[in-house]
Structure formats: structure tokens, C-alpha cells
């Protein structure tokens, strides 16, 4: 499912954490900044997800090629070797149906739209907030119920 909107902030009403069972959800954080990897890793772990990290788009692709799979991928745009847009396109071509969420500090609407068109489900401005994650988890749990 692809949404055409890029949310810069999310202030949706949230269900309580107990209502959302996140223990069996897995996530991959793809970012070339060790600081951002640590930050997003912690953010997601706080919500009970199992998290892995990758330094760039190519490493993320390699993980999938080795048979790994994740419910959620947080994809940075600007990375060396392979950037977020290219990695997203490649993953979709490979048939990956995980929720891929762009996390970028790109300001221009055009740049964000181009990133979305690579195959993202959502796109948020860095840094990710608790509200953003709440929103993503609601979406993930909704998708799980539909399947």
C-alpha cells in the first residue's frame, strides 16, 4: 500500500501501548550516521520491536539477499555507496513488501516526493518522534490484521 503524503509531524490520537503488541515486530534502521542509528534503534526498542541496523543501502539489500526480513524499514536518503532511494527501488524490485519509511532531513517537497516515488510507504522528516513511531506501529498492526 502506498500513501502519497509526506508527514512532517504526526499528532494522531494514540491507543495505549498495551493495546499494541509489538513484540513480534522487527525493524531495520538504515542510516550512515552512527548517532542516528543509535537513536532510532533505541526509539524502536522502547516500543518492543527487535531492531537491526545497516550503514547504507547496499548493506540493507545484502541483508535481504541473505534471507533476512523485517516488518519495518527506516530508510535514510543520503548515504554513501547506495542511497535510500536506490535501495528502496531495489528492494521493491526484489519483491520486498515490508513497510519502508523514509527518514530524511531533505527540505524540498520535490526531493521528498522523488523519494516517495522510489517506493516508500511513508516519509518523515528527521528526527523521528514518538508520535511518528506510534503512527507507524498502528499502521503495521492494521496491516497484520488484514493479512
Amino acid at each position, binding site marked *: 500500500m502506498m500513501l502519497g503524503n509526506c508527514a512532517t509531524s504526526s499528532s494522531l490520537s494514540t491507543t495505549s501501548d498495551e493495546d499494541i503488541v509489538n513484540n513480534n515486530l522487527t525493524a531495520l534502521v538504515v542510516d550512515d*550516521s552512527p548517532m542516528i542509528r543509535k537513536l532510532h534503534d533505541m526509539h524502536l526498542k522502547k516500543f518492543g520491536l527487535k531492531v537491526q541496523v545497516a550503514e547504507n543501502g547496499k548493506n540493507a539489500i545484502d541483508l535481504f539477499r541473505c534471507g533476512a526480513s523485517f516488518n519495518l524499514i527506516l530508510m535514510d536518503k543520503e548515504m554513501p555507496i547506495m542511497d535510500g532511494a536506490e535501495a528502496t527501488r531495489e528492494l521493491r524490485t526484489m519483491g520486498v513488501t515490508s513497510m519502508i519509511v523514509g527518514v530524511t532531513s531533505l527540505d524540498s517537497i520535490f526531493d521528498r516526493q522523488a523519494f516517495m516515488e522510489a517506493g516508500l510507504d511513508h516519509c518523515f522528516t528527521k528526527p523521528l*518522534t514518538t508520535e511518528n513511531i506510534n503512527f507507524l506501529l498502528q499502521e503495521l498492526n492494521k496491516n497484520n490484521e488484514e493479512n
Partner: protein
Amino acid sequence: MDLVQLQRQLVDYRTSLYHEGFLDEQFTQLQELQDENNPDFVVEVVSLYFEDSERLLNELSKALEQQIIDFKRIDAHVHQLKGSSSSIGAQRVQKLCIVFRNYCEAQNVEGCLKCLQQVKHEYSIVKTKLESMFQLERQILNAGGSVPV
């Protein structure tokens, strides 16, 4: 100074950092991620920020010394610095990066050089302030107290 005084000093100091625009809400979110299982989380993330920033500032200095200025490369570095600064709530540095990027777009060398100096200055201030804050926290912990939220 006794424990209560130290704790009050920390709260006042932290409040002033927000009031003076050195830190924003994003730093609060960072603190909220810290818990007993990860008691050094904030210090670790901020240390990574310092490493990252110093590397980027060095790259920027080198790039602006070149005969032929690569504005695209400079913009990429500033963009990264802006991103990481906003992620830890270093508001003043982040705002200066926005101005810096405008000068890059305009290919204005003078503007870029001036901005770089300002960014270096603001960065060193916020670094000093955060280090002072962490030191206060350590003093409180060493005195057997807990760090007020």
C-alpha cells in the same frame, strides 16, 4: 554544595538552556528514551554527535580552503550537520545550518566562510554547555542522589 542544591542547580541550568534556545524539545525526547537499562544513553548519543560534528566541521574548513570550491560537497556536509543537530535538539546550530545552505546555493564564498565561523562558535558553546550539564549530573550521582527529570 549539598545534594538538594546540586539538583536545583541542574534543573535551573537545564531550563536556561531551553530558554536561551540552545536546546529544544528534541533533547527532551532524547532524555525520555533513557532508562535504568540504558543509563548512559543521552551521554552516548551526544558523544556521537560531538564526534560527527567535529569531523564535519573539519571537512567544511578543508573544502572552503580549496582553489575551486565544491559547493555541492559543502552543502552535503552542512545538510548532515543540520540533520544530526536537529536530532539531538541543538537548535542554534541547526538554524545556522539553514542559513549556511542558502549561501551554498547562492555559491557565496564569503557568506559560507562567515557562516562556518558562526557554526563553529555556536557548536563549541553548546558542547561546553552540555558537558557542564553532564558534569553536574555526575556530581549528583556521585553524591548518592538521582538526576531530576
